[in-house]
């Protein structure tokens, strides 16, 4: 719905501003926006790999994830795109940037990798990319142009599915009698998981009290007579107990 409105408004904009010649009238603005977001996402992902400075890596990662949110909007998953912007870009990346700032001492901002490692990783990455691209283009229906579809906004069905009730239409290609389960149990598991992670992260990253041996020595020496008297009393008591045991 939103994509159709966006595409029609953009084509109207084009027809009013531009003198429509033959090739420009046939431009599919959905594809143009897809190419824009995909180019930014892929270029910034490669830039994350190539950059040495960790602060610039974080910046490129923000751009890549935001462009991916744009791709989600173009695919009709508005709610997932909004969550990507809010949780990933707004939450996780801010957390990472705080980590960068907390550890950004001078020798750790740019840690170089050796060039032989770079070459090896480039070869492995190229091989993996070749395999994945071959798999992406192999299946025939994936390559066909999309058919026109009218889809409802997805936020309400997602919320009902998380509560265990499916209100959406069964997808094409799925038999109607197939059991479609809701997501109440995974939702609860993720909730408990987030609670445990919150407690665990707060426990791991807490500020520890410094107890140096020097301070302990000072404390022990200042209360020395008391400790000695206490040890004498304890030894006499243990002797009394062991003697009573016999």
């Amino acid at each position, binding site marked *: 719905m939103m994509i159709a409105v966006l595409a029609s408004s953009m084509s109207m904009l084009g027809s009013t501003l531009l003198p429509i010649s033959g090739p*420009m009238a046939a431009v599919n603005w959905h*594809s143009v926006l897809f190419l824009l977001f995909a180019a930014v996402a892929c270029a910034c992902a490669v830039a994350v790999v190539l950059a040495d400075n960790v602060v610039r890596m974080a910046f490129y990662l923000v751009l890549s994830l935001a462009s991916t949110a744009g791709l989600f909007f173009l695919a009709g*998953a508005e709610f*997932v795109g909004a969550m990507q912007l809010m949780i990933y870009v707004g939450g996780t990346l801010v957390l990472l940037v705080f980590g960068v700032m907390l550890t950004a001492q001078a020798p750790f901002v740019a840690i170089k990798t050796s060039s032989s490692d770079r070459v090896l990783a480039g070869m492995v990455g190229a091989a993996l990319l070749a395999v994945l691209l071959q798999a992406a283009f192999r299946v025939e229906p994936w390559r066909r142009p*999309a058919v026109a579809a009218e889809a409802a906004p997805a936020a309400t069905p997602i919320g009902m599915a998380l509560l265990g009730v499916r209100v959406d239409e069964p997808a094409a290609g799925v038999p109607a009698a197939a059991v479609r389960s809701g997501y109440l149990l995974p939702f609860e598991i993720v909730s408990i998981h987030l609670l445990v992670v919150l407690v665990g992260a707060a426990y791991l990253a807490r500020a520890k009290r410094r107890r140096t041996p020097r301070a302990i020595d000072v404390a022990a020496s200042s209360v020395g007579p008391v400790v000695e008297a206490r040890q004498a009393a304890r030894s006499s008591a243990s002797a009394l107990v062991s003697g009573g045991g016999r």
Partner: protein
Amino acid sequence: MNHLAAVLPSVATPLFAGLLSSPVGVAHYLVVGAILFTAGVVCMALKRNALGVLMGIELVLNGANVNFVAFSSPYLRGEGAASLGLDGQVIALFVILLAAAEAAVALAITLNFYNNHATVDIDRAEDLKG
């Protein structure tokens, strides 16, 4: 804009005419997901900064998310292709949530390591092996 309208077809027609005028399909999204995934794997393998490894993990999860959303999309499906429907979007949401949790714990471990060893170079974390 007139200049752009005059220049763009002559330059980009041989290369991009098919891409610009035909609708995108699932395969286009799969290419983007493959590039993000590969960049993440290489980033995880190559970076010596612990935070760089975390960024590689985020890229890998993001590439998987692109694939899930593409398979669940009603706009990209070709004739006769099956679709994940709403399931793909819900799984993508779970992946986003688990990535946030993973980043929180991994960052806490990294800060703890930094407090104890005064470095974030994972090549110098040799006493962490069991």
